[in-house]
């Protein structure tokens, strides 16, 4: 399909602006003036819309079908939320509007803060972080501020993570200026307590943990884990990416965690738009509250206001008060369920266990437990027996009309297939997905080429990721655009994490 730039034609116009007569002329000093115009696309609106309509038809979303991308919680995105976020009172509100002209926005944010505190079982919430990974970084900054405040700033220099951790956790540790220590996983998929004990000491600032873990398993010793850290004065950070498993069932605060981030775009149904937006509010225990970002939304009598007067705050991690539109959608989602959030999580867990039950005799199950909202299988046997990888299985699923699960993650499971159905899928879809995976396992034995060359039914065949990285063509080059056609293609894809 053509790039939008390849539809361009000199002098063609899309939108037009109002023309105001008789105004002073715009005068940019010569040396600051644009020397040559940016080569933006030149096409009329009809073709513009067609181009993006065509692009959309080459894309798969939750609206298209089942999207069990593990750790990403791809649930239905209610259209009413899109309607609500488009109310002029929300979408056309300037963030510098005086508080008296933003009471509705402030109230919504305050209510969301309260809800997230209740769901997490903690005391204070900042909505500012723009995504889970920024929530992590903010959480680590809070630890830093907390220990500095206690005079332990120099001493506490290490963060412990699990070997099942999402890549954002170690990356955040580095960006926050901490050292990283990794803890192993025991045979039931819990943190290895012995390993953990050996790594936690008075230099430890804290733990970062996802629970249920990225294996989809709840850590059975979570109380012991919390004790180990708290005993040395360290803090516990909860990566809330898997909150969809436990809303109303178990709360991070009750487990002993001190800081939590919540991926609003996962548990609370923010459409992810092919990469984002998201929201990563953090919820913290009392003692960390003084350090959370400014401004904070507070209730003040009958009204609401922004509190900037927080002398021990770490400062700001993002502009203004965070991605407001995301709050509107997630608040709406939560209000649709109310205390029924528990049934939401129960159903997510039921759906996952149903898939697991139907698949575990055919694919390898590294940890034989009931799962939470997701589970991890392995294609190890397929690989050994037929040379079929998790990647091949994933590509073949496309031909059956499904988005593949997350693969090659978590790292401790070879040939991992990480499957998360979410609560909004009907049984029919789950059954069809199982049937496809079972058929694929048979095909792996009977017609392995079918898998290795998959997908067959998508707008493109398997794409060469190695060529992309080598050539690094990252923008259109107009007349000078490199012509790849004719190059030898070996559609190699990296057997690395795809998803989560």
């Amino acid at each position, binding site marked *: 399909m053509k790039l939008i730039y390849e539809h361009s034609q000199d002098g063609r116009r899309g939108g037009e602006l109002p023309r105001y007569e008789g105004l002073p002329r715009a005068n940019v000093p010569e040396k600051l003036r644009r020397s040559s115009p940016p080569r933006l696309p030149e096409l009329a609106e009809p073709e513009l819309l067609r181009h993006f309509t065509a692009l959309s038809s080459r894309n798969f979303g939750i609206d298209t079908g089942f999207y069990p991308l593990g750790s990403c919680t791809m649930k239905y995105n209610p259209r009413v939320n899109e309607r609500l976020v488009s109310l002029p009172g929300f979408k056309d509100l300037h963030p510098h*509007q005086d508080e008296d002209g933003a009471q509705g926005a402030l109230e919504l944010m305050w209510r969301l803060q309260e809800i997230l505190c209740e769901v997490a079982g903690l005391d204070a919430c900042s909505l500012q972080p723009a995504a889970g990974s920024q929530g992590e970084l903010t959480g680590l900054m809070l630890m830093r501020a907390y220990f500095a405040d206690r005079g332990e700033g120099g001493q506490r220099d290490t963060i412990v993570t699990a070997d099942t951790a999402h890549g954002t956790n170690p990356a955040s540790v580095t960006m926050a200026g901490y050292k990283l220590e990794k803890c192993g996983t025991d045979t039931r998929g819990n943190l290895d307590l012995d390993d953990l004990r050996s790594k936690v000491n008075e230099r430890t600032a804290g733990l970062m943990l996802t629970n249920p873990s990225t294996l989809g398993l709840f850590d059975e010793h979570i109380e012991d884990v919390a004790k180990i850290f708290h005993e040395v004065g360290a803090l516990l950070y909860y990566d809330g990416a898997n909150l969809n498993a436990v809303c109303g069932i178990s709360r991070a605060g009750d487990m002993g965690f001190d800081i939590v981030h919540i991926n609003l775009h996962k548990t609370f149904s923010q459409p992810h738009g092919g990469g984002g937006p998201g929201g990563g509010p953090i919820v913290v225990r009392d003692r960390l509250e003084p350090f959370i970002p400014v401004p904070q939304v507070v209730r003040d009598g009958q009204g609401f206001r922004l509190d900037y007067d927080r002398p021990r705050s770490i400062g700001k991690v993002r502009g203004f008060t965070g991605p407001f539109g995301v709050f509107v959608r997630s608040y709406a989602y939560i209000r649709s369920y109310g205390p029924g959030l528990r049934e939401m999580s129960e159903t997510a867990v039921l759906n996952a266990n149903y898939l697991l039950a139907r698949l575990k005799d055919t694919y390898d199950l590294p940890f034989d437990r009931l799962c939470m909202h997701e589970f991890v299988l392995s294609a190890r046997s397929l690989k050994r027996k037929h040379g079929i990888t998790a990647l091949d299985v994933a590509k073949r699923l496309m031909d059956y009309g499904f988005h593949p699960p997350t693969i090659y993650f978590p790292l401790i499971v070879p040939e991992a297939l990480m499957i998360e159905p979410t609560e909004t899928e009907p049984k029919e879809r789950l059954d069809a997905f199982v049937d496809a995976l079972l058929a694929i396992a048979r095909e792996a034995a009977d017609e392995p080429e079918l898998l290795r060359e998959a997908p067959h039914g998508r707008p493109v065949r398997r794409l060469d990721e190695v060529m992309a990285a080598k050539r690094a063509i990252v923008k259109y080059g107009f007349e000078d655009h490199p012509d790849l056609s004719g190059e030898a293609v070996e559609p190699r894809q990296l057997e690395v994490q795809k998803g989560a």
Partner: protein
Amino acid sequence: MSYLSLTDRDRDEMLAAIGVSSVEEFFRDIPAGVRLQRRLELEPALSEQELTRHLEELAAKNVHTGMELSFLGAGIYDHYVPAVVDAVLQRGELLTAYTPYQPEMSQGVLQAIFEYQTAICELTGMDVSNASGYDGTTVAADACFMAKHVTGRTKVVVTEATNPQVRQVVKTYAPGFGLELVEVPHRGGTTDPDELAAAAKDAAAVIFQQPNFFGCLEPAPELAAAANEAAAIAVAHVDPVSLGVLEAPGKYGCGIAIGEGQGAGNYQSYAGPHYGFLAARNEFIRRMPGRIVGETLDAEGERGYVLTLQTREQHIRREKATSNITTNQTLLALAGLVYLSWLGPQGLRDLGETCMSLAAYAKERLELEPAFPNKTTFKEFAVRVGRNAKDAVRDARARGVNPGYVVGRDYQDLDDALLVAVTERRTPGDIDRLAEVLRA
């Protein structure tokens, strides 16, 4: 209301297939002590109709820019968002997709990002753009992290005339990055290149904004030169809407260009979600944070797009990654792409000129002393209102006009200064009204 799809019969069949008797059993691994023994204390579930009424009531408590004649800017602008942007963003296949990890499922999003990267490179004169950052503040922190690793230095310089929120975010991030932050004061509304040159010594990066927070045009080429002389990376924080009339940072020596994308295709939305953009010269490509899409071929030799250079990223490099970012702002960046494509080069230029002309008209009409005399400004300018600007705002708002931003909120010595933003949505008549109200 709920969006659950299982019937009671489904549930029973599924439990039977799993071999458990109730949903409770799934939670038996959760230690009793951490199981919640009560229902969440949340207000009852609402039907769609009730939900709508509730949120409409909240929305009605806000005074949006359709209700009040607004000249607020200071980083977020009331530019017109054409309907075609909304139409594209509401395409479910794009709206409800996750990050395009599986390229064969995601050519639509991937190609759109590639096109977006191209547009950002064209605007900024850079070689490579990522798929977006969170907003115009966090991309500044990203740039610092890049610069630190590229130069091995531990200091960043930011001009005081850079958006205060950008500076605050950099300041929050700096300790974790092991960076010291130095601010260079403005002199009458712009930055003195010599002063900046002095500060730039041993700096990893020098960040300035063009047009700056006061709306004034910085001597950007000279500021970049000051950075380059010190072998620091010159980082320009630019307004995309200005780049039809203002020179591209790549053309005057910057190594990195960043900015807030909101004005180009996103609603104000009480500050988000929006997109921050970050583009750089090719030499920094392996230190870029975030997603980058590259062109390649498929098994049949057809062109296609994939996430590329992933060895920079957290999911592969983990603690050695160039950033921890994963979720970004692709949908908002897509809005930016649609918007910029709708405008085209001529439209972008018209837009810049229109805003600038209207702002010039406003300056004339207001007949107020400029806060920074003899400076060229773009779409925003500061005037002295002869009393605390807060009071001027309060009085004007009582008459249905929000005249601008109170500069004193961020700059102590400018209590009487009002920052007035004029976009193409404000007509000459609107400006006359502002003048009238401010005179009163």
